[in-house]
């Protein structure tokens, strides 16, 4: 959403720029405001969209913080995001100063007060706003330059922000995008933002109409000594930058980067296509273990976030974070069904570890055999097939909402592998009516549980039997090969 709003801001901003005059800033905005057909509501849209962008960016940052998606290979995205946020706030500051109404003057004076606390200029900038001389148009020019350059810089900075991601999702789902843009446009047309009076430096304003999304900090900055305000600002910025350090985990256990077992890699080039972090490349095979492909996959541990999505993409099960590979999953299925009483097998609910845990008990209460997987995209289709062949009447996979997947593309790739023959696809011999996926959304518990109940009822109605051909399900599918890291 943030990127879409940034685009909207750039487009509306370009329109406003055509009318802006550094020699008569407030008067040029007044002229725009007087145009009821376009000027007034585009100005309002620019303002409300910038507020919406602050909200969108803060929600985006909060979500990634809450999901602990900030450290390791993601640290670059995090730190560049913090810089983008700072740029957003500074752009807002320059934007409001541009209007040169009472709020703009208050911001300019607040900024000058902070700036004067730095040992940069011997003449206080605050004197420009004393009222004994006209404000130099160079001031408005520099301000305008910053207001145009910073958002364009932010658009370029997005490139760094997204540089470690494959296929970044820039736009929200179309209904959400239309709803947000439509609502902001309606708000701008029916309740446009008024224009405050022109700044008068020899008049004392006790209150100004302020945009709290951008200047929530101003009352503190005004109340505190400038050095303390600076300490607060720099401290908050530094702390935000350092969050990846605080949340950092040792790269062991479930955070171990993925590895390729070159003995199994057939060089099919699927995992590099599926990895959401572009962490896998194909390189010429060295030496070789017998008759093998010319190329072999190689994981860059500095880019790998251990999401496990590659494990689900590899038909010969030769890649994945240790403990999460297809082979590990198949081995666990064997272990489970090796001790299960086949006559009592229940339908299986495979839940993403991150999807709402509150559902697990209700699912068990509805007769589900609940199992967990690190990410829906990590689930190997062979594990599903083997579960069915072992006698489970059906398998339903519970995923996170696709936009909320910590593996970024888990639900998408799972769906493609199950129903659209993407490598490593669920084999055509498997009865698709016994396999389903459902989004485990937090806001719709009834919907989720209903989906399960309907699935279970469907399985019962179709009286799915254990296939007689698989009286030895454990040996039926693949030869157990111990997973060793080849390097």
């Amino acid at each position, binding site marked *: 959403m943030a990127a879409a709003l940034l685009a909207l801001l750039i487009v509306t901003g370009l329109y406003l720029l055509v009318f802006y005059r550094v020699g008569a800033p407030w008067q040029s905005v007044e002229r725009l405001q007087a145009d009821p057909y376009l000027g007034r509501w585009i100005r309002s849209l620019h*303002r*409300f969209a910038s*507020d*919406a962008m602050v*909200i969108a960016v803060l929600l985006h940052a909060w979500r990634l913080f809450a999901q602990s998606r900030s450290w390791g290979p993601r640290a670059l995205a995090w730190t560049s995001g913090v810089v983008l946020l700072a740029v957003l706030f500074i752009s807002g500051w320059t934007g409001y100063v541009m209007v040169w109404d009472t*709020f703009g003057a*208050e911001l300019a*004076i*607040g900024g000058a*007060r902070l700036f004067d606390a730095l040992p940069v200029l*011997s*003449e*206080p900038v*605050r*004197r420009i706003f*004393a*009222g*004994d001389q006209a404000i130099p148009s160079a001031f408005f020019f520099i301000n305008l330059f910053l207001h145009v350059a910073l958002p364009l810089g932010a658009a370029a900075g997005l490139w760094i922000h997204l540089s470690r991601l494959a296929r970044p999702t820039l736009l929200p789902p179309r209904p959400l995008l239309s*709803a947000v843009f439509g*609502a902001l446009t309606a*708000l701008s047309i029916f*309740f446009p*933002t*008024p224009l405050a009076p022109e700044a*008068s*430096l*020899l*008049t*004392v*304003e*006790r*209150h*100004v*109409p*302020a*945009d*709290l*999304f951008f*200047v929530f900090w*101003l*009352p503190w900055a*005004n109340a505190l000594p400038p050095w303390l305000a600076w300490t607060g600002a720099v401290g908050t910025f530094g702390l935000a930058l350092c969050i990846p350090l605080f949340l950092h985990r040792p790269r062991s256990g479930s955070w171990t980067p993925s590895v390729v077992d070159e003995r199994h890699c057939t060089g099919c080039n699927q995992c590099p296509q599926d990895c959401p972090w572009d962490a896998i490349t194909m390189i010429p095979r060295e030496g070789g273990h017998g008759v093998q492909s010319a190329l072999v996959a190689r994981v860059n541990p500095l880019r790998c976030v251990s999401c496990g999505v590659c494990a689900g993409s590899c038909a010969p099960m030769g890649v994945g974070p240790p403990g999460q590979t297809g082979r590990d999953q198949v081995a666990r299925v064997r272990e489970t069904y090796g001790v299960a009483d086949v006559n009592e097998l229940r339908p299986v609910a495979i839940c993403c570890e991150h999807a709402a845990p509150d559902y697990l008990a209700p699912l068990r209460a509805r007769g589900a055999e609940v199992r967990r997987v690190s990410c829906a995209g990590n689930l190997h289709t062979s594990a599903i097939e083997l579960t069915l062949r072992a006698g489970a009447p059906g398998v339903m996979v519970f995923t996170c909402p696709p936009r909320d997947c910590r593996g970024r593309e888990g639900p998408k790739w799972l769906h493609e592998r199950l129903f659209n023959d993407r490598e490593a696809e669920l084999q055509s011999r498997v009865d698709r009516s016994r396999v389903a996926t459902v989004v485990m959304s937090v806001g719709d518990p*009834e919907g989720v549980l209903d989906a399960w109940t309907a699935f279970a009822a469907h399985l019962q109605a179709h009286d799915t039997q254990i296939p007689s051909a698989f009286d030895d399900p454990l040996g039926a599918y693949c030869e157990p090969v111990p997973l060793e890291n080849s390097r």
Partner: protein
Amino acid sequence: MRPAVWARPAAGLTVAAFGLIALRAGSLAPLRTSAVGESVLRLSWSARPERIEQCRRLTDAELAERPQHMRLRWECEGRFARYLLSVRVDGRIVASDTVRGGGLRNDRPMHLFREYALRPGERRLGVTLRRIDASVRLDSTGGQVAAGAAAADRETREAQERRVRRAEALPDSVSLDTVLVVPTGRVALVSYASGERKLVFRTGQ
């Protein structure tokens, strides 16, 4: 019990409507400014403090030892004067402190920006800036009168430069004492007019 079919869209619309109301309210919220009072006395100026220096006239021999580009007949050492700023409102002293030139060595102009709260109404305002350090005049002992037209010319030029510098600097004392009606919400601005070498007064009426 299951929520009705329309409950979700209705909840969505309500949340969206409240969201928009909050967005607009947050975007146009009244914010208390940094104004120090209902009305304000503002002092703002840039003025060059006087230079307090001890000068010595160099001999021809001393002058000849200096590199070509550093040959000044008068060699001066010193610093810039400090001033006592005092501000009175209705006879009450609201500020009395030492002010000096800007920069790390105080060799830049004195840039001053101060604000004091004023109660609106008829007020007697007094602002005084008085030099603290005593000035020292030229000490012409020790040197010799230079011979030749070029040397005399240089000496005149140097003397002229020193005079200009002194004329541009703040006088020993400047003050402004006036009674005025300060309207609510106005700034009474005192600045220094360097041409007239005095403090001047402006209101925002």
